Every structure is written in C-alpha cells, then in structure tokens.
C-alpha cells in the first residue's frame, strides 16, 4: 500500500481507534425509541388487516372505547383528515405508476398487516386489549400473490382504474444480442433463478414518539431511522405543517439496514394522532407487526442467457427480471430501484458488448417491498456469477480463469458498460488475484477434489462484484423525491479548545460518529477525545440526506473534512494575527497552534478564551469566526462504485441437505479507509446478512396472502453457531471524486455473499449431477435438487 498524506504520525484517518461513543451502549445506557417516555404520553396499537385483500365495510369501536385507559380509536377515515395520502413513484423511472396510499387503509386493505385502525391508550397492554375489541367488518376479496399470475389477463386487479397489476416495465438493449446467441462459434447457456422474499429483522423494531405543540403548530418526531430530513419533509407535506416547524430526532437506532429509511403509514399516522389528540403518542412495533409491516425485499424470478466466444470472452447477456413489490410502490424512494439495479448492474464487472434487459415490477397483495441493504445487487451479482460458473462448466474453463479474462482491466478506466453505467477507479483484477492468493485457491481445489473421493461434498464459489455507493442527485432528487444527495457538516471551536462537529449523516451502529470524529480530529488537528459529534436532529445539524446507499463516509465524511479544514484556516488566521505570524507559517497539532516544524506557539484553549472572553486584546479589525460549515455532493458521476471479490467454501450434507459454511473470504476496494476495523465489521455483518438470504431467511406466504412465519421462532436468521469466520483483505483505490477518496463500505458484503454461497453449493453438488437456483437454499430445497424428496 502506498503512503498517503494521511499516513503521518498521529493521523486518525486510517487508524483502528475504538468507537468513542459505544461504552454507554454496553452499560445499558442507550436511548432507543422505546426507552423514550413523555408526560401524558399515549401508546398506540394498530388494528391490522387479517386479510391480504379485503373491503372494509364498517368499523365499530364502541367496545374498545369502553375499556378503562383507552383515550381514542381512530380509523383510516379519521386519519386521512389530518394526513394526506402519498404516491411512491419517481419521475425518472419513466412510466412507473402507483395509486395514492393512505397511511391507514380507508376503503380497502391490500396486505395482511396493513393498518386499519389505531387504538390509543395509557399503556401498550391496555391498547392491545382494546384492539381485540375493535369490530371490523371485512368483505374479503381475491388476493393476488404470485407475481407472474398477477400479470395474467384474468387476474383480479388490486387497484381499480388500472388495466393490470403492472407497476413498471423497463427495457434496455445495446448491441446485437440475437446475433451473438445465433453464432454457432459461441457457447450459450441459460439459467433461471428464484429469490425469495426476506426482510431486515432489525433487532430493535421500528417505532416513533410524536409530540405536537398546538400553540406554535410544532411537531417533533423521535424516530428510529436513517433519514431525519426526509421524514421532516414528509411530515410537513402530509400533515400540512410548515417544514421549519417540524423537528425529527433520531437517537440510538437499534439496527436499520435500509428497513428504517422509508415512509411507513403507521409512523406517520402516529404524528397525525398526536396532532388530533394534542398529546404525545408512542408507537413501538412488536415483532409480529415488524414482520407484517417492515418493508420486505427481493422476491425476483430471473431468466438469464449469456454467450461466450471461442476464447472464452463474453459476447452477450440477456436478463429478464420479474419482481413483486406488494400493493404500493413505497414512498418516496419507490419500489422500482431494486429491479432497476438488477437491470443496470448485472454483468457490471465484465466487458460485455451486447446487452438486453427487461424488468417488470408487479403489484401483489403482500407486504410492500423496497430498498434493503445492497438493493438489487445480491440478485444482479448472483445471477451473473451463476451464469459465469455455468459457462465455465460448459467450456471446461476454470471458473476463476473465466472471470479473470473477462474482468474490466484495472487500467481501462473510465469504463462505460453496455447499460450505460459509468465506472472509474476500480480494481477487479487486483481484487481477484488477491482473493485467490488469500484463499489459496489451488490448494483448496485439491482438498475439495480429494474429499469428493470419500463422499464428502465440498464446493468453492467465487464472485466478482461492484457496489453502488456515494450516490449523486441522479438517484432520487432527479426523480422528484425530497431526498438530499448532499450532506452538510459544521465544526465549531469552543472556549475550552474542544471541537464540536455536527453532520447530517446518521448513526445506526456502523460507526458513523466515530468515523466523523476521526476525520474531524485529523482535519482540524486535535486529539480524538476533544471531538464531540452530533448527528440525528434536524433542529441542530446541517441539512442533508442521512446514512443509506453506503454514502456516510464518502459524502458526509468529505463534508466533515472540508468543514474542519475551513475552520482550521479561520482559526489560523486569528492565531496569526495574535502571534504576529503569517497563517501559512502555522499549523494546528494536538490541540495547539504550532509552527510548521511543530513548535507549540499557543494552545487552542488559550486562543479561544482570548477570542471569546477578551476580545479587547485582539488586533483591531479582527473578528474571528470559530465555526465553519461545508456541504458536499458527488457531481462528477451518478454513483461512485466500489468493487470486490469474494469466495465461499461450503460442505453439503447430502443426507440432511444442510449446508455447512466452512470459510468465507472477501477482498474489497472501498477507496480510502478511515477505520479498517469499522470497514471490516461492516463487511462481515453484510456478508452474514447475505448468507441469511442465501440459506435461511424467507417470508413464507400461503396462496391467499397469509404470512405464515411472522415470528423469530419461525423466520430463521443467521445464528453465531452457523456462521463461518470471514477473512478480509483490501485493495485501496481512492475515488478521484473527492479529496478524502472514500467510497462506501456498508453493503458490499450483502451484495456478493449470496452469489458466492450459491456457486459454492452448486460446485459441491456438481459431482452428483444436480444444481439449485432458488434462494434461500433450505435443506428441503437441496434435498429436492438431489431428488431424495419429492
């Protein structure tokens, strides 16, 4: 690794310092949403539709209202008077449609678990008691669940006035795909894949506490989420409160993963109830309603066809993806981005001259789906890498070698894919080479082959991948969504010499506050314990997007670096006047103004006290500003991609169908690394969530749209005993779009792991003449693939 300007002694950028802000979390002193309590606060329990599709005939709340402690029962018709419905489409996803969605159903419930009424009482337990007494008369309608049947002409329609259940269709074509498939000199393979629905299962369920001050028309929402400024706009717009009078506060967030970046009807209804009743209202979802109302993700059926020529070089790729999104496109990010990423990113690591893609996004009577960690990437990477292994098998080429010769070379950037995606500063070849070295690929293959002779079925799966990070306004803002692509940072020196910084990005456990503190300490010149970070409060922090799409370090971090550099320049200007020196001859190091050779001239505390308390001692005309603010957005490219390579080593028990994960390796290029420990833990956590989708996690539905496994006992998430150790290495190619050079790190693990596991399982099954292409790869599905069960 080459030395950078951050490698000087006492640099915090690039060092593995422990997160300063987590000791209180370990002592039980966290402030999660359900820990919040306010005077006169009411607790809400939602009455949720037991049917996937039903007309609401009538609601009788008489018995519920008679329960001691119940303050109110509100129906969708009550709430729609204070919260206007929304439409979850983006204008740049041309042709997408979704009807107005009320935050609580008014006439028709369209998924099992959709809120129908809300009971407000003095405790959650009383509200739950009363909710069972709310008498809702439903007229059940036919439920539309299978996404392909939903598009058949005879299918029941979910939305009256629409001619079909299609939400959006997109087609892309570049180059002569058909000619490549018709060329007899080419090898052509075709595979179909099924990806089940899963969900985020944040260990802290969603929730919020809303308080409304009618005297000043002010709404405050304490929420467990990732994008306070976006929710501020949503509340203002749909409750009719001036935006400046809405404050959104996000304290400790118990896991998020994209689940908590969306607009949820139940949460906004809580604000509506607080406004109507003029009392604080708390909603803390229990696990059942988390499964029934947190966004779900994935659910794709994809057909992929690919051709390589006699030299093994990719010639064409054809992808047909159908994805089910529930009854509404989720507001305001839309439910089209996931499928769009599949179409845009399949094959991204490789040179492919001809490409055809079709995406169909379909309404259905299930929980709405939307962006969850790695958005579309797990699908795009798994299908391409699955096809690469199929091509390797068809031609007898080694899977790693086939990837190596097809990767976009490290010296070929900038590169534009057939889909029109722009890539820069990537290192696919270096990452793959490092991965093969890290895992000792040749020795591993020999071990696998040796064990096969003894009836032990082990397999190796490899993935080369990209990940969208640091999105520009081309992601959401261009489509009309009130979502900032830029982030702001402020830095302020107090009278004690401490540095107070604030940022519009948010902390959900990934280490945002620590990363910001490291950049601030480094950029300004103080010790880490002199930095105090504030995030997650729209009344206090600069305006910006929040933490999602792996943008915190790359965008929020760059804004912080620039703010601290600006503050440093301002402080040195004042110091120079006081010390009768030139600003360029001074520096700030470990809390003191120094000469460039490091000789201390005066402490920041002495300077600050002089400025704040004894301004009379300052030279005439000097009016120091010890606060600076900077904003940053990516403007050169739509996205700053990262890349990486990953491998999985598994053993399949052919008697039980159980997959044992033996080892997992990741080589990732996230550009400049601010804290390697935090990056590695993001990758590990991401890999494990990807493993969950590949092997365990699935929202199982009956044919009539009943979610059958809505508890943690029935919905399987990865447990410690099943997880492998994950070895990580880095290639570091800083992005040239910023001074800091950081790309995102939060999602790559989830993006690549499912494809690596699926390829490893299929490699293990190969000698038995069978394969699997449906996730999660449960023991039952593997036994079916083996033909040992029907």
């Amino acid at each position, binding site marked *: 690794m080459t030395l950078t300007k951050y490698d000087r002694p006492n640099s915090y950028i690039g060092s593995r310092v422990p997160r300063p802000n987590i000791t209180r979390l370990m*002592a039980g002193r966290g402030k999660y949403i359900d820990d919040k309590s306010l005077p006169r606060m009411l607790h809400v329990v939602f009455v949720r539709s037991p049917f996937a599709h039903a007309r609401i005939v009538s609601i009788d709340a008489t018995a519920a209202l008679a329960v001691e402690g119940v303050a109110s029962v509100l129906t969708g018709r009550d709430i729609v008077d204070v919260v206007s419905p929304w439409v979850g489409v983006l204008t740049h996803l041309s042709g997408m449609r979704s009807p107005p969605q009320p935050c609580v159903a008014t006439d028709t419930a369209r998924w099992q678990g959709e809120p129908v009424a809300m009971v407000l009482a003095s405790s959650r337990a009383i509200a739950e008691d009363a909710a069972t007494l709310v008498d809702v008369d439903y007229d059940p309608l036919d439920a539309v669940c299978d996404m392909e049947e939903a598009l058949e002409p005879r299918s029941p329609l979910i939305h009256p006035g629409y001619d079909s259940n299609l939400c959006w269709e997109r087609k892309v074509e570049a180059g002569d795909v058909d000619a490549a498939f018709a060329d007899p000199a080419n090898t052509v393979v075709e595979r179909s894949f099924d990806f089940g629905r899963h969900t985020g299962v944040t260990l802290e369920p969603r929730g919020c506490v809303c308080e409304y001050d009618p005297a000043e028309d002010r709404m405050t929402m304490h929420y467990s989420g990732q994008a306070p400024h976006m929710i501020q706009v949503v509340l203002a717009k749909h409750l009719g409160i001036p935006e400046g009078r809405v404050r959104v506060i996000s304290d400790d967030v118990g*896991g998020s993963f994209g689940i908590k970046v969306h607009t949820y009807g139940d949460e906004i209804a809580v604000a509506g109830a607080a406004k109507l009743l003029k009392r604080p209202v708390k909603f803390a979802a229990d696990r059942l309603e988390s499964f029934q109302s947190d966004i779900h993700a994935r659910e794709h059926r994809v057909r992929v066809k690919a051709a390589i020529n006699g030299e093994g070089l990719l010639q064409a790729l054809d992808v047909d993806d159908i994805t089910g999104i529930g009854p509404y496109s989720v507001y305001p990010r839309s439910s089209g981005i996931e499928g769009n990423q599949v179409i845009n990113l399949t094959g991204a690591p490789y040179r492919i001259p001809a490409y055809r893609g079709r995406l169909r996004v379909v309404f259905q009577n299930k929980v709405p789906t939307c962006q969850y960690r790695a958005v579309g990437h797990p699908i795009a990477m798994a299908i391409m890498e699955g096809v690469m292994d199929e091509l390797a098998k068809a031609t007898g080429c080694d899977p790693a070698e086939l990837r190596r010769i097809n990767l976009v070379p490290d010296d070929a950037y900038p590169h534009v894919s057939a889909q029109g995606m722009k890539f820069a500063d990537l290192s696919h070849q270096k990452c793959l080479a490092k991965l093969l070295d890290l895992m000792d690929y040749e020795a591993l293959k020999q071990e696998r082959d040796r064990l096969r002779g003894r009836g032990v079925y082990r397999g190796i799966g490899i993935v080369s991948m990209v990940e969208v990070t640091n999105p520009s306004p081309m992601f959401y803002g261009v489509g009309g969504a009130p979502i900032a692509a830029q982030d702001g940072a402020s830095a302020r020196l107090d009278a004690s010499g401490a540095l107070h910084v604030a940022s519009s990005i948010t902390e959900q456990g990934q280490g945002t506050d620590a990363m910001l503190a490291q950049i601030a300490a480094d950029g300004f010149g103080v010790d880490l314990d002199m930095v105090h970070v504030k995030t997650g409060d729209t009344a206090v922090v600069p305006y910006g997007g929040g933490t999602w799409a792996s943008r915190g370090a790359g965008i929020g971090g760059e804004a912080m670096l620039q703010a601290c550099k600006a503050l440093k320049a301002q402080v040195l200007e004042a110091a120079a006047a006081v010390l009768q020196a030139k600003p360029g001859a001074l520096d700030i190091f470990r809390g003191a103004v120094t000469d460039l050779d490091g000789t201390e001239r005066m402490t920041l505390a002495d300077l600050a006290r002089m400025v704040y308390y004894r301004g009379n001692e300052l030279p005439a005309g000097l009016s120091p500003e010890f606060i600076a603010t900077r904003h940053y957005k990516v403007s050169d490219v739509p996205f700053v991609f990262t890349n990486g390579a990953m491998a999985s080593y598994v053993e399949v028990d052919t008697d039980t169908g159980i997959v044992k994960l033996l080892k997992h390796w990741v080589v990732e290029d996230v550009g400049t690394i601010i804290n390697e420990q935090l990056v590695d833990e993001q990758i590990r956590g991401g890999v494990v969530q990807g493993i969950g989708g590949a092997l365990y996690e699935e929202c199982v539905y009956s044919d009539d749209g009943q979610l059958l496994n809505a508890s943690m006992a029935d919905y399987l998430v990865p447990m410690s005993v099943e997880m492998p150790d994950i070895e990580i290495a880095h290639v570091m190619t800083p992005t040239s779009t910023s001074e800091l050079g950081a790309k995102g790190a939060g999602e790559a693990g989830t993006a690549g792991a499912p494809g690596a596991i699926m390829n490893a399982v299929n490699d293990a099954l190969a000698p038995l003449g069978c394969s699997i292409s449906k996730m999660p790869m449960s023991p039952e599905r593997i036994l079916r693939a083996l033909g040992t069960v029907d």
Partner: protein
Amino acid sequence: MTETMPIRLKVNGEAVSALVEPRQHLADFLRLHLQLTGTHVGCEHGVCGACTVRMNGDIVRGCLTLAVQADGAEIETIEGLSESGEIADIQAAFHRRNALQCGFCTPGMLVTTSELLACIDRVPTREEVRSYLSGNYCRCTGYQAIVDAIVEVAVARRSGSDT
C-alpha cells in the same frame, strides 16, 4: 385492567416492591416500573436473547419470565453488572474488538457472556463460544468480533488466575 399482585424482590442489590399485573413479564417490569431500559425487548418469544438478565445467579429470558415469578428473587441487569464492575473486562474487550454495532443486542450478549465465562473452567474454543451464543441474535456484526472478544477475555482471565 386486570388485578395486580404484590411482589418484593432485589434488583441490582436494591430492595423493590411493586404491584404488577400477573401477565407482565420481567423485562417489561424492569423497563416500565424501574426504568431499567438497558434490558431490551426484541421478540417476546424467547428467541433473540436481547432481554437476558440474571435471576438468582442464572441467566433467564426476561420476556419468558413473569414479574410475579421474580417475587423473592435477586435480579441483576446490565445496569447493575456495569456499575459493580463485574463485567468490565468483557465490556473493554467488546469495545476493543468493536463487538457491537447498534448495541441493541449487547446487554443480553454481555449477560450471556458473563455466564459462559463463569461456568467453564478453561478457555472455550471458538466453536463452543459460537454454540453458547446461539440464543442471542445479533443482526449487525456477523458474530465474529463477539467471538474474538469473548475468547480474548477467557484467555486473559485464565492467565490472570494462573499468576
């Protein structure tokens, strides 16, 4: 509202008496009556382990134990274990290894870890640690850093007791 029953117990060494509904579980009692919000509620099915507390010296699920069952019991929560310093070495290792991200599972994870390290008289293998932690879910870390931290503490405690 259902009838309440009186209970008397010790929580983190302090005597407590309260009137509780028989249906109220221990985690809700600790959170709602005593504002000991470090005990978290993640699933209320006894699966995730976020509500793990110590009762009469053994770890229990706070969501599967009724408050009335704790009548006469001694309860220790993350707040008490932190303030007494009993788990300080485990907390320090979790900090060094970044064995927590969002921190929601962490109090339960730490209470479980304290029991694992108390009930085994040697350094556990990584597999044994992973197996013991299977009743505590973490969605953030992928578990590896947690296993690293626990093994580190186990080694340090053994070498400390040998000298």
